């Protein structure tokens, strides 16, 4: 049986508790067992198991032919994945931090993303590019960015960002099975790593066996009637913390987008048409990105839906500072999220 979100909602099939990292690996394992053309390559994905636990245990089961440590040559090995995908394999290439896209972006956006279009649909690139994103632990300006807005801005690749163990598994399975290039961005703060502060939901129930979550479908993770908060990644958990705090005071609806491309505009519109109030929380840069796109999704259709102007809580276009008080000031943390929700709910 292929378990999907709807079968899970119907209570079919078993579950077990996993960290987000472990859930991601479980999906890869299952796909690698099912499909001999799937392989994983990147830096420190073998014996180390991925710096953020994205491949732990894979080498033991599948060996160095299918779980491959590469030189620090991102252009070469991401390009290799593209070529292998063109020839019908299903590679998963890992860019250790999204911040490193600078050294290999041409392969990603001029090749991986455009080949299908340029070939008039004749050439498919069924690959996954996994990458770690996000800050909050003082890793500085070159190791803390989200950058999903940048990838999403460039046409031709799907972009998914799981925030829970179950979605990490289901979206990974869908990404591997997808005939398009999919960027799979995991926030370090949701992985449930032993060596980093964890949110309470980083270990949770995950469906057993083959399990998919559709790419491009947002999830209402908390129903509410006063304010819609649309968000993604680790911010989902910060928003849930705030929503739980405000319960009884402001009834917050929380939407986890899960995918930027395709963007589930219907889910955004459905929620805002109900609440009339919108806060967008995005750890990525404020300008020219996700928060503007979500706002425009509403105003393009019907600005009169909104009883109050949209509030955007995002990185104020600032390189992520190293020093903790500075970093906390620019990240969309609970204090800023709560203030925005209160303001939007106030009138």
């Amino acid at each position, binding site marked *: 049986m292929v378990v999907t979100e709807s079968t899970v909602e119907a209570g079919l099939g078993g579950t077990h508790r996993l960290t987000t990292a472990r859930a991601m690996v479980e999906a890869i394992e299952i796909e690698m067992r099912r499909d001999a053309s799937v392989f994983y390559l990147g*830096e*420190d994905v*073998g*014996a*180390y198991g991925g*710096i953020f636990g994205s491949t732990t245990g894979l080498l033991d089961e599948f060996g160095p032919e299918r779980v491959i*440590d*590469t*030189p*620090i*040559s*991102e*252009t*070469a090995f991401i390009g290799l994945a593209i070529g292998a995908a063109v020839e019908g394999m299903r590679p998963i290439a890992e860019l250790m931090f999204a*911040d*490193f896209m*600078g*050294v290999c972006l041409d392969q990603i956006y001029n090749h991986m993303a455009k080949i299908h279009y340029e070939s008039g649909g004749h050439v498919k690139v069924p690959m996954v590019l996994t990458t770690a994103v996000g800050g*909050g*632990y*003082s*890793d*500085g*300006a*070159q*190791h803390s960015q989200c950058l999903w807005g940048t990838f999403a801005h460039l046409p031709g690749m799907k972009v998914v960002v799981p925030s829970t163990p179950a979605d990490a598994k289901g979206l990974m399975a869908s990404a591997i099975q997808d005939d398009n290039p999919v960027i799979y961005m995991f926030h370090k703060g949701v992985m449930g790593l*032993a*060596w*980093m*502060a964890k949110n309470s939901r980083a270990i949770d129930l995950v469906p057993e066996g083959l399990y998919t979550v559709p790419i491009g479908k947002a999830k209402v993770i908390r129903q509410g009637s006063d304010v819609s908060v649309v968000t993604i990644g680790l911010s989902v958990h910060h928003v849930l913390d705030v929503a739980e705090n405000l319960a009884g005071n402001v009834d917050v609806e929380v939407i986890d987008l899960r995918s930027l491309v395709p963007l589930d505009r219907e889910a955004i519109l459905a929620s805002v048409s109900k609440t009339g109030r919108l806060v967008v929380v995005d750890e990525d840069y404020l300008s020219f990105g996700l928060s503007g796109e979500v706002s425009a999704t509403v105003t393009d259709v019907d600005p009169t839906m909104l009883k109050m102007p949209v509030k955007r809580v995002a990185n*104020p*276009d*600032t*390189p992520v*500072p*190293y*020093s*903790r*008080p*500075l*970093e*906390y*000031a*620019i990240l969309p943390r609970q204090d800023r999220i709560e203030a925005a929700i209160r303001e939007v709910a106030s009138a």
Partner: protein
Amino acid sequence: MTTTAPDRQQVGLDDEARLGLYATMVLARRFEEAILAEYHADKGPGFDIGKGLVPGEMHLAAGQEPVAAGVCAHLRSDDAITATHRPHHFAIAHGVDLGRMAAEIFGRETGLGHGRGGHMHLFDPETHFSCSGIVTEGYPAALGQAFAFVRHGTDRIAVAVTGDGGANQGAFHESLNLAACWKLPVVFVIEDNDWAISVPRSASTAVSSNATRARAYDMPGVRVEDNDVEAVYLAASEAVARARAGDGPSLIEVHTLRLWGHFEGDAQGYRPELAEVVGHDPIPSYETKLRSDGILDDSRRDKIYQQAGERIEQAIAFAKSSPLPDPSTARSYIFA
């Protein structure tokens, strides 16, 4: 070419200079030991990378001091260095202010970057020192500094540092080619510590010596097989002289040693030779050599350690007593 037995006379390595190399290595090591202790002092319970007075990733260079000390001994403070994610030993050997560097590592307003940068992003215009957390991305910038030095009519040079893993990055090859084409006064340094995080050099690199790659770009290349500060000093004396004379770039690869983990918190389960590593610490072995040559005795050694200790204590005290940046200034310095 492999350099093992340096001719000291030839390169001006008198007793004073040899003690200087030793003192530089001791200073770098003691500094990193102090940072190591501060880093781990408040990460618990367990280990949380985001906690404590010095949070975030921490890449220490213990074992690699011979490279920094041997190269930087030839530099003036108006020469430039672009270092890596593992930058402290080069910063110290090049004379970056210890207090302001420590303050940056502690994220303080008095730090080199007012706490904005952190340990992988140290910028010191006074000594023309910088580093980057993106592997080998310091190489191209060194070309530009060298270019400016030539255009300004000076004999200043630039040193670019990367690791064995970094030598497989596109920027490495582009930089070597361009520097050779334009005869830029650059010394390219590779710290080969056998590992790029968990990936052994043998699994990532098609050539056993990066001197071969230098030859591909028609520049002198040397691999220094011993992690010995004098061997590095000797190789660097030629490369620096060549750059200063306007004869173009050279490459020096040093087979060095990563004594500790890739970063703090790295359990190094992938590293079979781990138990033997301490036995190859280059500082005690240089000390033995200096003692047997009659240059170093207990009192001199104690003095060097004491002086290093005092400077480091002061630097860390300065860092810890400095204010944290005001959160309302987080957006300062984005633009000039």
